[in-house]
């Protein structure tokens, strides 16, 4: 209801409401990976994604009240599916409907922000709030849908929240509460905070998170420090968690960003928490098909959140350096460490277990899990980054205004342990002030240290090419 109310308010009441938006079409060709760990039966080879985006903003009450809306509608068209057969070769799969083949909408943002007095701003609605300076990845972002690592601009969706900010010249204090979105219908939240009593099999708990944050500009350094306290919040974190099921759980975050010697931006993000929601394989289920089937038959989950109640502290740390040259060229190098990432033995067990899950999927004994795009994770990404190991290197390079209208960009994400990774390159042509055309290619590369066993060796695709046209109005 809030988005609808905002739209009507914008159209009818706001002083000079402003509307912008775009129409886009994204065509992609994906080559499924015959060595994919999991089944690729739900991964479309050809996909056309049509979208329309509307962004509106209006101001009321002598400009103290801002209404803002950012909504997109998507129509996906998919053709062609393939999966590896018993001989490890790709066979075509019958055309079928997937979770990602239905039209959906995404309300990335829909909020009202009121400034009743100086140094006080109240915000209610769905909004994306990011305090981490990481270029490609924000391990401290435990609220929003994760970004696309190959294009930092390809995610604008936020979360439901009520937020209070007290901004001053050199510091800001913020507090927010956010109910978890428990269910969506075609992208529209239908259950938030708690399950209705009529819903059988669900808990009676409130699913929420609360945040207290302080920002300060100290010695020309952006310093953000905040603490979150959450209960069964269940939102994607962008940090590799498949579910964030902590109960009454505190987290502590600190981020820094500073420009050195005029052109060198350096930044850091640190998250500290006890326990981990990461899913690890049970070694007893991973050794052989027989062990795996035995676990299945005895209802022993082969992959569990075995450290969720762990007392050990697991920090996540991202540090980065971003030189900015006078011609607009930008490089970014980031190193990411997560203490709960899998050690080599754990990774081997995990990969063995996933391989067996893939075997079940390919024999119709388990549901396929690859569904793209997802309607509950914000705007559809071209790629995702769900780090499982401990050490990663992320590098990006971007050269804008090449021949005035072209921007080229390259991104490499690599596991520093097995040197497998994902490489992506794109060319964007700003053909007119209102039209952008993009060509994007991406491919995972296998481990040179441990061939066939690297983190990205078992990626669901071996290559993907995308063409995107976007007209702004």
């Amino acid at each position, binding site marked *: 209801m809030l988005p609808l109310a905002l739209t009507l308010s914008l159209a009818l009441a706001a002083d000079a409401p402003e509307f912008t938006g775009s129409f886009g079409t994204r065509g992609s060709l994906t080559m499924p990976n015959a060595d994919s760990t999991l089944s690729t039966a739900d991964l479309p080879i050809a996909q056309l994604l049509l979208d329309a985006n509307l962004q509106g903003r209006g101001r009321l009450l002598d400009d103290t009240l801002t209404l803002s809306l950012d909504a997109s509608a998507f129509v996906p068209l998919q053709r062609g599916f393939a999966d590896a057969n018993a001989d490890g070769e790709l066979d075509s799969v019958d055309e079928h409907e997937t979770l990602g083949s239905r039209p959906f909408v995404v309300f990335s*943002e829909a909020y009202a922000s009121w400034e009743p007095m100086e140094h006080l701003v109240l915000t209610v609605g769905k909004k994306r709030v990011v305090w981490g*300076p990481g270029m490609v990845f924000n391990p401290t972002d435990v609220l929003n849908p994760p970004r696309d690592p190959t294009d930092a601009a390809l995610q*604008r969706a936020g979360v439901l929240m009520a937020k209070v900010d007290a901004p*001053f010249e050199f510091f800001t204090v913020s507090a927010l509460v956010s109910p978890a979105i428990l269910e969506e219908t075609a992208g529209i939240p239908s259950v938030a905070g708690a399950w209705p009593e009529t819903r059988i099999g669900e808990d009676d708990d409130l699913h929420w998170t609360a945040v207290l944050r302080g920002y300060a500009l100290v010695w020309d350094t952006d310093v953000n420090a905040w603490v979150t306290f959450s209960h069964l919040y269940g939102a994607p974190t962008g940090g590799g968690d498949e579910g964030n099921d902590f109960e009454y759980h505190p987290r502590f975050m600190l981020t820094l960003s500073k*420009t050195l*010697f005029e*052109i060198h931006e350096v930044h850091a993000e640190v998250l500290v928490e006890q326990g981990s929601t990461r899913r690890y394989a049970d070694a007893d289920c991973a050794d052989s098909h027989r062990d795996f089937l035995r676990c299945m038959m005895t209802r022993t989950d082969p992959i569990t959140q075995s450290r969720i109640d762990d007392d050990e502290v697991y920090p996540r740390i991202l540090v980065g350096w971003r030189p900015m040259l006078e011609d607009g060229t930008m490089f970014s190098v980031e190193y990411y460490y997560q203490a709960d990432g899998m050690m080599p033995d754990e990774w081997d067990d995990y990969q063995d277990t996933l391989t067996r899950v893939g075997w079940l999927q390919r024999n119709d004994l388990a549901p396929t899990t690859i569904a793209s795009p997802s309607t509950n994770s914000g705007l559809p990404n071209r790629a995702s980054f769900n780090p499982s190991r401990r050490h990663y290197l992320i590098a990006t390079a971007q050269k804008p205004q090449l021949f*005035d209208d072209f921007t080229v960009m390259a991104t490499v994400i690599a596991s520093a342990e097995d040197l497998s990774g994902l490489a992506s390159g794109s060319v964007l042509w700003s053909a007119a*002030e209102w039209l952008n055309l993009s060509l994007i290619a991406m491919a995972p590369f296998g481990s040179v240290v441990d061939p066939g066993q690297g983190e990205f060796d078992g990626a669901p695709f071996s290559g993907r090419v995308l063409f995107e046209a976007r007209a*702004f109005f």
Partner: protein
Amino acid sequence: MITALAFMLSAQAASFDAAAYLKRYDEVMSPAAFDADSSMVAHREDGSARTYRMRILKSGTDKLRSTFLEPAAAKGQEMLRNDENLWLYMPNLKRAVRVASRDSFMGGDFNNADVLRVNYVADYEATAGASADPALVLLELKAKSTQASYDAIKLWLTAGDPKQSQPVRAEYYAKSGKLLRSAVFLDVKDFGDGLKRPAKIEMKNAITPARHSEMVWHTVKMKGEIPAQRFVVDDLGR
């Protein structure tokens, strides 16, 4: 003869208060607090042009915020300067990232500091130069710190009472002495509240001469005070 001419030029050079003219430049080109509507047209090598329209808020000597209104692809982008810090807010990222002051401003021939950091009194040491045109005075500016936009600037203003002087043209140099850009200040206009200044700046790129950009100031409303929270990173995009 040459010695005599050099002496005359030297005498002319020493005959005016360079600091007063530099102060005047800051007063007209960057008043203490204002809310302006301006646009930049970037003319490119192929003859095409891109136009950006923006609202500019300034407070004090070190706070400035620019919000892009056009074109649609750039609408909602904002740039903020707070002292030595520059941020660019991208609406499709929903967050601000730090940028460098010497980066090109929206791909045109101005750099970020040309637009966001006009505080020549703080950034440059001015000495009186020898102007070949008696109607103009020449200020030779040397950067005081590495935060300044350029290492050296030659700035010509109308001669006479410094309190009535207007900038006419400028040349911007790298440390090596290489000419990077040159500007012409045009269309002196009365914006009200005692502000009379050039409404148009044409900036030519000396490295790629086929390019040039224009910054046009449509309105400049002088303000007594603008709330400090308008110049806070958290306020960008709001």
